[in-house]
């Protein structure tokens, strides 16, 4: 559906986007993750035709953004970071204007009412946009992107500056919209991406450093898994018992909240699942396991590792490039 190839955008000498390639399938919700200034917004601006790239191509449904800009723009609804609202207009006037501007062929009144219902702005339709709260402005921005029923939605940090209730509402709305549409969503808030997106592209300093499902990304980075266990019994004996299991790399422990028990963090050698041997080894010695959980890296850990640690960056980048050229 969307194919981005070798995109590069220079501002003076600085490369805001550096050789970025990825594809988005129809119906996919893609998360675009990266710290501030990573090149997310620039990429989205190029994709929607607001600015042009220095190198590379953007193809949507087979149409090139430079050769057939109108065909591409017709298919994309864009909500930029700051919703592009005319503050001196009422909500309904503004949506009517966008409808005319986009030269939509659907039945006007019906279409606009439907969208206003969907994003829940019907009750403020007669109010001036400048008098609306940030949350409502964001919704009007989203309504604007939905006009003309585009197949693709590009949303740049759609929940920034909203209160937690509004964030949940917008997220639920995006999920709902994603059932019928292709959505590209950018964010620097990790739980947001994990809550909404099926696939994630992590970008830093203008380069894609990972592109996969969230699970796979964290698996790739962590390599080996870590197990957290709360076990009752003498600290030294338990540690000895755990250490004797095949596949255990190291064990660390600390005092637990449960009396007489300790919390153990066990890191394993890659390729070993020690949960069963652990159970048998401990039950043989009468050490009850109170708690056992597989500790995967949290998204924050993944993100920080990818964007700060150089060696990890290099490692994942190789994989990311393979994925993105499919």
């Amino acid at each position: 559906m969307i194919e981005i190839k070798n995109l590069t955008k220079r501002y003076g000498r600085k490369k805001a986007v550096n050789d970025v390639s990825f594809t988005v399938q129809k119906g996919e919700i893609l998360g675009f993750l990266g710290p501030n200034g990573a090149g997310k917004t620039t990429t989205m601006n190029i994709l929607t035709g607001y600015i042009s790239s220095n190198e590379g191509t953007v193809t949507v449904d087979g149409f090139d953004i430079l050769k057939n800009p109108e065909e591409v723009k017709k298919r994309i609804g864009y909500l930029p970071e700051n919703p592009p609202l005319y503050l001196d207009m009422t909500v309904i006037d503004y949506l009517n204007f966008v409808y005319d501007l986009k030269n939509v062929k659907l039945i006007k009144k019906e279409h606009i009412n439907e969208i206003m219902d969907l994003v829940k702005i019907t009750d403020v339709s007669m109010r001036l946009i400048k008098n609306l709260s940030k949350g409502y402005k964001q919704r009007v921005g989203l309504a604007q992107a939905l006009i003309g029923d585009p197949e693709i939605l590009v949303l740049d940090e759609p929940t920034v500056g909203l209160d937690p209730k509004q964030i949940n509402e917008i997220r639920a709305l995006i999920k709902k919209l994603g059932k019928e549409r292709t959505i590209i969503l950018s964010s620097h808030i990790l739980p947001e991406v994990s809550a909404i997106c099926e696939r994630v592209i992590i970008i830093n300093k203008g380069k894609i450093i990972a592109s996969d499902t969230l699970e796979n990304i964290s698996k790739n980075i962590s390599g080996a898994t870590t197990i957290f266990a709360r076990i009752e019994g003498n600290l030294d004996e338990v540690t000895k018992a755990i250490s004797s299991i095949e596949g255990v790399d190291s064990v660390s422990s600390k005092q637990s909240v449960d009396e007489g028990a300790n919390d153990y963090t066990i890191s394993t050698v890659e390729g070993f699942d020690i949960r069963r041997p652990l159970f048998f080894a401990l039950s043989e010695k009468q050490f009850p396991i109170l708690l056992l959980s597989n500790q995967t890296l949290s998204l924050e850990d993944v993100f920080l590792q990818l964007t700060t640690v150089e060696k990890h960056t290099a490692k994942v980048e190789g994989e990311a490039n393979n994925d993105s050229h499919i």
Partner: protein
Amino acid sequence: MTAIFKREFKAYFTSPTGYIFLGFSLLLAGWFFAAGNLSTSSAEMSSFFSSLGIIFIFLVPMLTMRLIAEDKRNKTDQLLLTSPVTITKIVLGKFFSAISLFGISLLIMCVYPCIMLIYGQPPLGNIVALYIGFFLLGTSLLSIGLFISALTESQITSAIVSFGVMLLLWLADWVSTTLGNPIATTIIGWVSVLKRFEEFTMGILNLSSIVYYITFSAIFVFLTIQVIEKKRWS
């Protein structure tokens, strides 16, 4: 294009701009007419339009200052440029909205010849030439304002620079006559939109002058489009 035209035109009246423009232009025009024509019983409208021309040096930047600068400041250009319309249509829609408001004020000023018609026989051909000439002159000034509005994000900068440029054009006309150098006079004569208007004040409806004004506006509209286009690439 019509969508942008309609929005921009309405925007003049959701802000005080449209009212101030119409109010001032009509107030001063009324005063010029009363002082220059009614009190002296003169049917000669050329001095009326000469005075009005100077007033429009102040008023035109008011109409054009926000045209593109405001969109850039408020990021609403993101909506326009990512919609399936060409930059040419966006710019033309905006330009025509300013021309329309200017045209409306000029249309209201048509009551003056009508008043004269009641009491005498004013030189109608002459007056029609003046109105057409003034409309073309105004359009050219608006195109300069439009272009300058595309160069900045600040409406104030846009207004001040537009005003300065138009004042320079007016002075250039005056400078060229005192300079005495024929080559400089010719060159300045080419950029001086006000100089061209003199022909109309003499009642001459010259095709070359009409073409000149239309070309002048077209060049500045083209430059405006190029400025916006170039910003996308840099």
